[in-house]
């Protein structure tokens, strides 16, 4: 079966007109399944490949770069048409990317970039973390419309790049709006339970009635914080406005229930743009831009969150 597909794929590659993407074989080296989002990314990638009739070879690296490099080498050895990598770390890729280049196999990076010369890969499909924070901040600026607002912030894991960038983007959006002030900012480690614990302390330290909005670096922390706010006898989404990032199913549910106001989507669909670029390149050598930014879509109560929830809940979040 595999051999047959490979042979077919080879035949297609040699064919003078290779306009059809059908019968392509693509290798996908995934980091692992450390978070719900990651699991959803895997699911969506498989769905995307299926829709396009691509034979996707999936390799789970279990958080180890050596496993990823091994997987890529085996993809090369199998003579796949293209490789998708969600790199676990930024460095140490030059050698294996060289090998792929020598074998004329295009590589598309997903979700994260690497420190390697950019001629070694076709393109990188990532979200813009700073932009996500910016969208969240902009939403809040518009939402309060000039009224005074004391904001508390639940940061991601201290020192991680999403935490740094999402904080930066949010602060950029707030610049020049003196009615908005971040009064407390503490890490909730991207987890529900820490989000809840830290929100509890915010509520006590500031007094729940003095907090106008919560910005959480991810939905999990926001979901935890919602419970803390409820236990403090306040109404999340009304007494305290809540905006966070990721747009996981539970966030849509919370918005649908009126307990949360907005979330910015970190789309798990990195594979869509990645495979678009790959197919175009394989068909006629179209060079995509070196960086494809995914859309950071804002979801608010105006969207049909119930429907989105139903759609997303089986993606493996």
């Amino acid at each position: 079966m595999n051999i047959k597909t490979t042979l077919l794929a080879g035949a297609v590659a040699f064919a003078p007109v290779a306009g059809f993407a059908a019968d392509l074989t693509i290798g996908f080296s995934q980091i692992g399944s450390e978070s719900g989002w990651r699991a959803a990314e895997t699911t969506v990638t498989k769905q995307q490949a299926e829709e396009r009739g691509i034979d996707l070879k999936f390799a789970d690296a279990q958080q180890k770069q050596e496993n990823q490099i091994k997987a890529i080498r085996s993809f090369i050895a199998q003579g796949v048409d293209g490789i998708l990598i969600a790199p676990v770390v930024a460095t140490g890729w030059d050698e294996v990317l060289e090998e792929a280049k020598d074998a004329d196999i295009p590589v598309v990076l997903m979700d994260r970039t690497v420190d390697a010369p950019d001629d070694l890969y076709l393109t990188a499909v990532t979200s813009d973390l700073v932009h996500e924070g910016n969208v969240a901040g902009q939403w809040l600026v518009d939402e309060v419309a000039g009224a005074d607002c004391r904001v508390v912030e639940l940061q991601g894991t201290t020192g991680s790049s999403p935490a740094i960038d999402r904080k930066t983007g949010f602060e950029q959006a707030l610049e020049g709006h003196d009615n908005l002030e971040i009064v407390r900012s503490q890490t909730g480690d991207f987890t529900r339970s820490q989000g809840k614990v830290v929100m509890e302390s915010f509520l006590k330290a500031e007094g729940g009635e003095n907090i106008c909005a919560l910005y959480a670096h991810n939905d999990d922390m926001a979901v935890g914080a919602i419970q803390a706010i409820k236990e403090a006898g306040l109404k999340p989404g009304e007494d305290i406005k809540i905006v966070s990032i990721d747009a996981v199913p539970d966030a849509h549910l919370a918005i649908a229930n009126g307990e949360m106001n907005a979330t910015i989507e970190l789309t798990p669909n990195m594979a869509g743009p990645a495979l678009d670029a790959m197919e175009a390149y394989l068909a006629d050598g179209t060079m995509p831009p070196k960086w494809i930014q995914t859309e950071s879509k804002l979801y608010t109560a105006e969207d049909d969150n119930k429907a989105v929830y139903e759609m997303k809940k089986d993606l493996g979040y």
Partner: protein
Amino acid sequence: MMAGAVQGLLKRIMPQLVILAAALLLNFIVFPDFFHVDFRNGRLFGNIIDVLNRGAPTALLCIGMTLVIATRGIDLSVGAVMAIAGATAASLVVDGHGWFTALIGALATGAICGFWNGILVAVLRIQPIVATLVLMVAGRGVAQLITEGTILTFLNPGLIRLGAGTILGIPTAIVIWICLGAFVAFAVRRTALGMLIESIGINEASSRLAGINSRVLLVCVYLVSGLCAALAGVIVAADIKGADANNAGLWLELDAILAVVIGGNSLLGGRFSIVASLIGALIIQSVNSVILLSGMPPEFNLVIKAILILGILVIQSPKVSYIWYMLRASGPQPQPDRKTPRPHRATEEKTQ
């Protein structure tokens, strides 16, 4: 007799009480409203309540951990067992079972994990740190298999009440850990278990020769540790209405061990005090509370925690206690001056 026991206990836990008081005082300094408690939304509400409530998982873990450490062992797997138990409870209610079934299922899972550890340690004689490392590493994977990698969210009100509910206005978690702690502490002292466990921890060879069934006792303490971890796991899952296999109880085994150590229990086994360990857990939570209330940037969290914990351990170190002892001893009561030798008593020197 009872009064004597209480007095002995007070003497034993005095250093921990003093440190706890100091930690709470520090909270009061950074946040003057710290001790303010009011009744809101049908529950007690205040920072001090948070300390008791948030300390629940560590407190529950350190009940079992104290017993395990008293036998000269250690249980690194408790954090992972929490994740497994939480996942079990969540998946049971998601499958439509009642909260009680879920709780029993989670406890049974914890008991199996503890039993596994106990067999490795007591029967196969694998060193506890290695034996429990197996489950520490593998356990989280097992939990992920149960939740299928997602945060398994549930809405069962009965189960949620275990973590986020209240009993007479007191958060359930507080009631659970205080009751369980008191029960186990009381049980080991009212039965002969405490003494037999200490005996094994101090000298297993002697204990065996004295006719103690050390194997069964060892399995039992790991089993208790697994049960405590399971209960902690259910509470943590109930608290956030979801089982987070990746993060539930992450690194909490280290906090539990630290609580036992701050409780003045030796990692080399032997004499133990569960009450002191529980106070140790509260001390750790008070330190966490200082960090949250201080409003310092999160980059300082770990540094502040490390400094405070280091300070606590230094104060408790044998060297410092010795200095305390000497300072106290040289205080009020007059000491005979023994600086100058008295040759008349040194009989031998006469003939020189």
